[in-house]
């Protein structure tokens, strides 16, 4: 009886003890936080593994030697790592030359893309002209329509490239641009390149967010509209220029769709060359086991994605910030 009485008194004491209550609250919030932390950790690690797992697999198996490959106990970490896969993939891809060509192609397209799309975006953002809303609606339509719907006519157009009969009038013959890089340059120059609609949209949103006072000041000081655009607005748009530049660079580099459509030489578009690497190695170097030929393909893929990954890692922070700040979020 006495014991119970004591206990009751103790409990009463504890109930009135502010210090205890405070501590209890603190512990509860702390453990809640810890649980949340654990939850987040588990989920994020899981998701990161889903993304990184296959990449780890590709990188590690590109170092596998034949014996490692045959040994079923070897998982991820090769026992006798070899660089042989890289040597042959490097050779068959003609790596440096193809990469150089590819980069030149992609970079020049990127510059055109940035200049043209920013111009169009600026035009939509700052000037009033008849049918503006309708025309901007067409930009949205361009984003939504998949290029696949219009591939055939575009293919035919470049097979006999003769807009308004200009070419046949001037030179007397109709050129066939398939198999060259010209179609891609022409399309990009006229704002219809790979995902140009999206870039126009990004620039438009960004320019709309800039204060009008900058331009008015320039205008009062006597700058023309073109001067204002090139020397003032474009400089202010650096974040979205950067975003579009990297997007354009990476997507163009990875693009096989237009490359296949226009039949651009694989020596210029490295992402086309990689698709045939496994066959090339199987046939030229007489590696008949498809699974082993695939190891060479993995090495080739590591070589191909390396430049992209390097660019991404270097610019990653600015890139993601750019996406966040620039137009997409509007």
């Amino acid at each position, binding site marked *: 009886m006495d014991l119970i009485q004591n206990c009751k008194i103790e409990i009463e004491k504890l109930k009135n003890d502010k210090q205890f209550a405070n501590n209890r609250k603190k512990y509860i919030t702390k453990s809640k936080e810890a649980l949340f932390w654990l939850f987040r950790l588990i989920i*994020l690690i899981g*998701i*990161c593994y*889903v*993304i*990184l*797992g*296959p*990449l*780890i*697999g*590709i990188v590690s*198996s590109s170092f*596998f030697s034949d014996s490692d*490959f045959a040994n*079923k106990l070897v*998982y991820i970490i090769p026992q006798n790592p070899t660089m042989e896969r890289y040597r042959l993939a490097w050779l068959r891809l003609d790596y440096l030359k193809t990469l150089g060509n590819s980069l030149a192609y992609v970079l020049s397209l990127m510059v055109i893309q940035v200049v*043209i799309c920013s111009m*169009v975006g600026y*035009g*939509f953002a700052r*000037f*009033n*002209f008849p049918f*503006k809303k309708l*025309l901007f609606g067409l930009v949205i339509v*361009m*984003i*939504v329509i*998949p290029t*696949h*719907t*219009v*591939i*055939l*006519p575009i293919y*035919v157009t470049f097979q006999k490239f003769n807009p308004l009969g200009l070419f046949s009038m001037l030179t007397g013959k109709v050129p066939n641009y398939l198999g060259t890089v010209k179609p891609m340059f022409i*399309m990009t120059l*006229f*704002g*219809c390149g790979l995902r140009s609609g999206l870039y126009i949209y990004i620039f438009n949103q960004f320019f709309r967010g800039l204060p009008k006072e900058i331009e008015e000041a320039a205008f009062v000081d006597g700058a023309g509209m073109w001067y204002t*655009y090139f020397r003032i607005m474009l400089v202010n748009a650096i974040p979205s220029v950067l975003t579009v530049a990297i997007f354009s660079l*990476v997507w163009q*580099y*990875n693009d096989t*769709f237009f490359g296949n459509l226009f039949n651009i030489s694989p020596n210029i578009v490295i*992402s086309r060359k*990689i698709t045939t690497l496994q066959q090339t190695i199987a046939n030229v170097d007489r590696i008949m086991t498809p*699974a082993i030929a*695939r190891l060479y393909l993995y090495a080739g893929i590591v070589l*191909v994605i390396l430049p*992209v990954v390097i660019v991404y*890692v270097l610019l*990653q*922070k600015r*890139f*993601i910030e750019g*996406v966040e700040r620039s137009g*997409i*979020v509007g």
Partner: protein
Amino acid sequence: MKKKKKLTLSRKRAIVGLLFISPWLIGFILFYLRSLIMTIRFGMSVATIEDGGVGYTLTYTGLANFKELFTSHPTFKQVLTSSMLDMVVDIPLIIFFSIFVALLLNKKFKGRTFVRAVFFLPVILNSEAIQQAIALSTQLMGGGIASAPDEIVSATSTGVNIEYYLRLFSDIAIPDAVFLYIIGAVSRLSSIITASGVQIIIFIAALQAVPSSLYEVAKIEGATGYETFWKVTLPMIMPLILTNIVYTVVDNFANSDVVQLSYNTIFMTKNYGLGSLMSLISMIVVCLFLIIVCGTISKKTFYYN
């Protein structure tokens, strides 16, 4: 010179504006508008290739292609419905998943930059060849590297009896439709994760744009975290849900089976009329889908400004 003086400033600006957009305008008319019209023409006729494969002649056949597509083509209807259904299933999953991850990543913690970089990686590595290799490698990692030589042994070799777990869940009276949806979601987990890179970044940006005063008010009024999410966070990021849905649909459709089918019909079997019609019809279906979805959602969207 006199004529030029008559132009008012607004007229002048209109002309300069048109000049600014002129490259795109010409391109759009030359490549897109013309091509769309040509696609419709192709779809309504039979194209025969002339010698050498350079030219073609069109014979107008009216709606014959249309009829063929819907009555006698072996796969089109199935492929169309299945890819549309896939889209309908995938979009809510991708949107919910990216909101969820964006909420997780929104708070500051150690290694956040790294995690964000990883999430964005699939957007960077979206080349076709790389995707295929990654898909293969996923199997490889799932079944252990040893399963590579004998390709028959794929994901099933992990030793987990999936059947057992499935039966376990169906025993606790979850409605079949929900149950199937969950199974679908889990089995697509990897593709959903890789498809939501851009969406996550957009949502993170949206979350950071929510004024902190709103959260303070909610806290002072005594709202719980749950309530705060539904009453403050969600309405504030609603406009971007719309953006994300449009982006997801476009992205998803470009890689869907029906597009692949039309591409193959055009370039492999050289049936230009049929292939053009396929791409046209699928495009119209997707546009209708977008209009319906955007229409319903934008009615419920709350715009802060």
